[in-house]
């Protein structure tokens, strides 16, 4: 297989990757440099995304290209611009109007989503049959007990005394198993990313470089 010398992109990516990994030794100037580049580029990237994916196709192009049909887009445009009035102290209070519309609308959407999309389906999913053979019944029982005890653990309106105390304790055990599972997945995800970065450093940068320098 012929290996191509790493291009400038690979050099930049390898340099920044090594700078970031240098933090494993201790906090140093190279790490701070890479971190600052990443922060700046991230903000710039999201500005680009906002323009390319939202503002241009949903606001500027329809509003200025077909004003007759899309005149109503003036409303979100003005509400968006009003947000910046917070930089004019005398008019800062007007920016609350946009926030009020935005928060209000999503509060309404949120209420429906929570009730219709989460509480009802999850409650329905917990109502499981207990007459389906020994093992499936036991498994269903685990789910029912788990949901009820976790909910009791999160019930803070009365102190966890009497029967609530051991029930909430069982809820904690269920939560710990679940957090353990999430923790396991997180570890695997991070290790997978680490393998990806090391593979890049070795296969895309170091190996072609050594191969190019010494011949193969």
């Amino acid at each position, binding site marked *: 297989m012929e290996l191509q010398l790493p291009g400038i992109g690979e050099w930049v990516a390898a340099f920044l990757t090594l700078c970031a990994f240098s933090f494993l030794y201790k906090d140093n100037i190279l790490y701070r440099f890479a971190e600052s580049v990443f922060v700046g580029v991230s903000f710039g990237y999201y500005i680009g995304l*906002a323009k390319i994916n939202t503002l241009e196709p949903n606001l500027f192009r329809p509003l200025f290209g077909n004003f007759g049909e899309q005149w109503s887009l003036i409303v979100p445009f003005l509400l968006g611009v009003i947000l910046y009035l917070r930089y004019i102290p005398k008019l800062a209070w007007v920016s609350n109007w946009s926030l009020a519309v935005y928060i209000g609308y999503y509060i309404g959407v949120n209420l429906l989503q929570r009730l219709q999309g989460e509480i009802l389906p999850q409650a329905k999913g917990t109502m499981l049959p207990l007459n389906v053979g020994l093992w499936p019944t036991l498994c269903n029982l685990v789910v029912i007990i788990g949901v009820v005890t976790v909910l009791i653990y999160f019930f803070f309106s009365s102190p966890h005394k009497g029967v609530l105390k051991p029930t909430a304790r069982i809820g904690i055990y269920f939560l710990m198993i679940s957090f353990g*599972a999430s923790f396991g997945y997180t570890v695997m995800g991070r290790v997978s990313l680490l393998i990806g970065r090391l593979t890049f450093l070795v296969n895309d940068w170091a190996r072609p470089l050594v191969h190019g320098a010494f011949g193969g």
Partner: protein
Amino acid sequence: MKRQVPIMLAITASFLPVIAFFFPNAWINEWFNRKLDEWMVIIASFAFLLGIVSMVQVNLHKVRRRQKGWIFSVIILVSFAIMASCGLFGAQGERENGTLYPFTWIFQFIYAPMQATMFSLLAFYVASASYRAFRVKNMEASLLLIGALIIMFGRIPFGALIHPVVPDLAEWIMRFPNAAAQRGIIIGAALGAASMSIRVMVGIERPYLGKS
């Protein structure tokens, strides 16, 4: 004007999706659902840009005052300016000759590798956190650790080599105890969020007024 108008706007806006849900009519659906969804995404973009203005202000302030680490603020501002101008004034994707436009180039060779590297660094810290969890000798920590180990070994080929039952056990944990706990968390959080929504809808909570 300063208090009543935002309260009225918020209450009105919060009832629009509810009305659209209970009165499924083409006109209501078009205006109260589809158009408003579109509008909110636009307002969110403006709000996001507002956050960026704030970031620029903070870093400029640091540079002007020559505060500790100001040079890194310069790096943040310069890299931000370069990427933002590529995003705002340039195209994205690939040119006809196969080379990348600057916005995509920076994404591919700076943003994506740095993001993966920053997250992969956490692998080392997670490892040290696991070590600390190992040393805590109580029932909760043990359950957390046993759950994590079974899931990790159950999802890799090595798990089946330890014992053939490990992958099945991992699957069982995911399907039953984990699902039960997640369901409890989802229902609890959703009940809390729904009650909070109602408080905002009737004007008891007014997060949009800020500190004023």
